[in-house]
């Protein structure tokens, strides 16, 4: 279906943190900031699965999640409705994410200590660009 447009890709570079909202079966929502939402293809995104946390537990009970992204180029924000599909511990998506974790970990003296456990793959159900959330760049006033 190719739902993710080209222009969303800068928002998936991890420059500005994203957010993921999930919901437990008992109806309690949960919100977590995410360093980077990874582009898998035009219909899939991936989140790094670090620890067995509430987000991971929630999507195994209730696969729906809401992902919020913001572009460091245009500052448009995006709402994605996604559904958890599977967890991967090998393959090209996992490898891409794993290489990044390994590189950064080695740069801060955490080699071997901080590792990617899995890549959680989500299918994209809808994509909404939030056009009314922004003050156009030319009109920003205030601050030094």
């Amino acid at each position, binding site marked *: 279906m190719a739902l993710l447009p080209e222009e969303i890709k800068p928002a998936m570079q991890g420059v500005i943190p994203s957010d993921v909202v999930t919901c437990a079966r008992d109806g309690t929502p949960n919100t977590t900031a995410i360093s980077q939402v990874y582009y898998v293809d035009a219909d899939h995104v991936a989140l790094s699965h670090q620890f067995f946390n509430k987000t991971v537990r929630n999507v195994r009970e209730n696969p729906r999640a809401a992902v919020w992204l913001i572009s460091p180029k245009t500052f448009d924000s995006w709402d994605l409705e996604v559904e958890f599909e599977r967890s991967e511990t090998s393959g090209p998506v996992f490898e891409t994410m794993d290489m990044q974790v390994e590189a950064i970990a080695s740069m801060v003296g955490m080699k071997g200590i901080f590792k990617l456990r899995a890549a959680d793959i989500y299918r994209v159900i809808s994509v909404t660009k939030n056009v009314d959330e*922004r003050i156009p760049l030319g009109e920003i006033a205030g*601050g030094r």
Partner: protein
Amino acid sequence: MISDQLVEFLHGPSFLHLGTRDADLRPAHTAAVGAVAHDDRRTVTVFVPAARAGRALEHLRQNGRVALGAGQMSHEAYQFKGTFLSSRPTDEADIARQEAFRLRFLDSLRQGYPEEIARPLSLGFAYRPGVAITFRVEEIFRQTPGPGAGEKLA
């Protein structure tokens, strides 16, 4: 419920994320610009741009469940979960608070971002007209990454 330290944190320069869900347990995100912890140390008001508030309010009126994530550039972060109490349009006092918040946020973003990102990210968010959403806090969790992440604090 909410300690001095957490009050100060909530009033500080944070990324604010409101999580809600509909009757079918489908989650939704709403970005917020500024928050206030009240003197009773139990209730919190968060300010959401009016154009984005519709969906959140629909959810809250239907089931009242809410989660607020607050995180700063230091990576210190907390989550406040609870039940919706009321909402109203933001007034002049709220707007003033938001404007002060935005400037503090800009300063904080400059620690890690070049100006061409810090300014639009802080000052580029529509915040008026806004909706003030108030909820009662029932659980507080640490979300700072590393040891202790996920720990229930209150």
